[in-house]
């Protein structure tokens, strides 16, 4: 086959993956109007021009910046790959995408359990997931870039990776060694958790070597270190820090209740924002609007009636009443205020070992609609994959 023929066929097939976003005409007409407003404002005077420039910052000859809270409608189209596990094609629903996944290998070295993760990252060029050499990573909101760490952890530099080329475009060297990463909700700052030893070696209770964290301004590359040693009430070696929903506070995990302890950006303890203090790892938490809160099984606990199948609940925090019960095992991430990405077993085979045969689904808050997103896997078996969800 000639290269030209191959290019021709590849372009044709690749173009079929393009999806038309909603409201294109509205957006175009709105930008045209803004452009006209700017023209009028420039004539009207300098003060008006300043205000209008603020309004029309995205009208120039460059691509519009796209923060997490973009006013332009984001792509919320549904992408599924229900026949593959792990997925081979891009998986996304509503505001959330499966941006990466990792497969964990467990071994024993010197009597200690050692975890080694292999990460697979979404590759826009192929529409699938590519194996990476990175020991740890996190994808920024918008799926345009990722932060990566080289093994063995902890490591002395953080890489900023362009998702389009899958290449590191910049390395940021750190004095304290990094083991964990979390992008801020606006995608402009990076929270780097630092450790003295590997966070993936279990050496026993209360042996976590967390030393603190860096706040990295991604645009300037400046990194400020703050001390925050490991919590004594968390038995995990990996105690990565995370961001509050607003990006104004940080949280550290605990092994108790509440599950998260909050700090301001300098590391001073702060009260938890409402609804954010008791969200376990991998739980969906508050919905995009903040009105609904994903909960666990409403029938669990002593004295409660047991159901035949799996169940989770969503609570309306404005009334403290249940908004719906879903036939799934775990609510992992919100797609929009009416749907969640969940881990679900086959309802008819979900007893005993069957509970570990599960897949990702999109479930409505009322529990009536369940759409498979990926194929099934035995998720406690060696080689099982674990998803990373990111705001699109």
């Amino acid at each position, binding site marked *: 086959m000639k290269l030209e023929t191959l290019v021709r066929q590849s372009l044709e097939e690749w173009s079929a993956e393009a999806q038309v976003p909603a409201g294109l005409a509205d957006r175009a007409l709105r930008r045209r109007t803004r452009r006209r407003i700017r023209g009028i404002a420039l004539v009207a005077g300098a003060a008006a021009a300043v205000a209008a420039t603020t309004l029309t910052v995205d009208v120039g000859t460059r691509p519009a910046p796209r923060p997490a809270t973009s006013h332009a409608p984001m792509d919320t189209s549904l992408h599924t790959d229900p026949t593959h596990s792990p997925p081979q094609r891009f998986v996304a629903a509503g505001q959330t995408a499966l941006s990466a996944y990792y497969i964990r290998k467990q071994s024993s070295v010197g009597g200690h359990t050692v975890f080694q993760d292999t990460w697979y990252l979404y590759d826009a060029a192929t529409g699938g997931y590519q194996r990476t050499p990175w020991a740890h990573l996190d994808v920024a909101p918008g799926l345009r870039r990722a932060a990566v760490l080289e093994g063995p952890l902890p490591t002395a530099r953080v890489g900023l990776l362009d998702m*389009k080329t899958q290449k590191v475009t910049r390395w940021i060297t750190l004095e304290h060694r990094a083991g964990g990463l979390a992008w801020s909700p606006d995608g402009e700052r990076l929270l780097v958790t630092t450790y003295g030893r590997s966070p993936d070696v279990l050496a026993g209770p209360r042996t976590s070597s967390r030393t603190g964290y860096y706040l990295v301004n991604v645009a300037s590359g400046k990194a400020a270190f703050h001390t925050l040693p490991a919590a004594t009430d968390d038995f995990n070696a990996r105690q990565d820090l995370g961001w509050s929903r607003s990006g104004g506070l940080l949280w550290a995990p605990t092994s108790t209740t509440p599950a998260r302890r909050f700090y301001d950006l300098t590391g001073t303890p702060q009260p938890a924002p409402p609804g954010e203090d008791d969200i376990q790892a991998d739980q969906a938490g508050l919905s995009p609007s903040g009105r609904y809160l994903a909960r666990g099984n409403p029938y669990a606990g002593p004295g409660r009636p047991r159901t035949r199948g799996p169940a989770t609940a969503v609570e309306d925090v404005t009334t403290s009443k249940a908004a719906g019960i879903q036939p799934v095992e775990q609510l992992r991430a919100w797609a929009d205020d009416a749907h969640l990405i969940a881990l679900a077993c086959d309802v008819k085979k979900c007893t005993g070992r069957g509970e570990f045969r599960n897949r990702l689904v999109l479930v409505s808050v009322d529990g009536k609609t369940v759409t498979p997103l990926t194929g099934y896997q035995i998720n406690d078996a060696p080689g099982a994959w674990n998803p990373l969800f990111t705001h699109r």
Partner: protein
Amino acid sequence: MDAAAERHFREFVVARSPALMRLAFLLTGGDRQSAEDLLQTALAKTAARWRTVGDPDGYVRRVMYHQQVSWWRLKWRSRETQVAVPPERAHEDDTSAVELKITVRRALARLTPKQRAVLVLRFFEDLPETEVARILDCSVGTVRSTTHRSLARLRELSPELAALKNITEVRP
């Protein structure tokens, strides 16, 4: 724009946006958000000149080609395609057609916007060199040399492609 013109514009967008989005998607190397930005900007420009645009489809396409190349010229440093190490050469025996096409996609995504635009015009839009030259406001010789260099760059980025026949079709 009066109500009737706005209705016509909306009908045009609904009817043509799938094809235009495919083009924007390819021009931006498969980056959905950049593709949306590109098409949205082109549609806004088209809406602003709706009364005077005779061939809106052609106008949007032309704006997208120029916009993509001018963004690249404006921001070439930050948009520079970075390639550290060529991908490993796959064993020819197990390189299926599907894998080859994925390889081509990856390589296309790493071309400069201008190189990609020329290949899209020639091999996706299937336009003759003279028409490509007219759209890009350059000479036929530039189109020919850019096409040749772009294909060579694909082979450089993906050694698997080097084994393919090196024949450039000549269209009048």
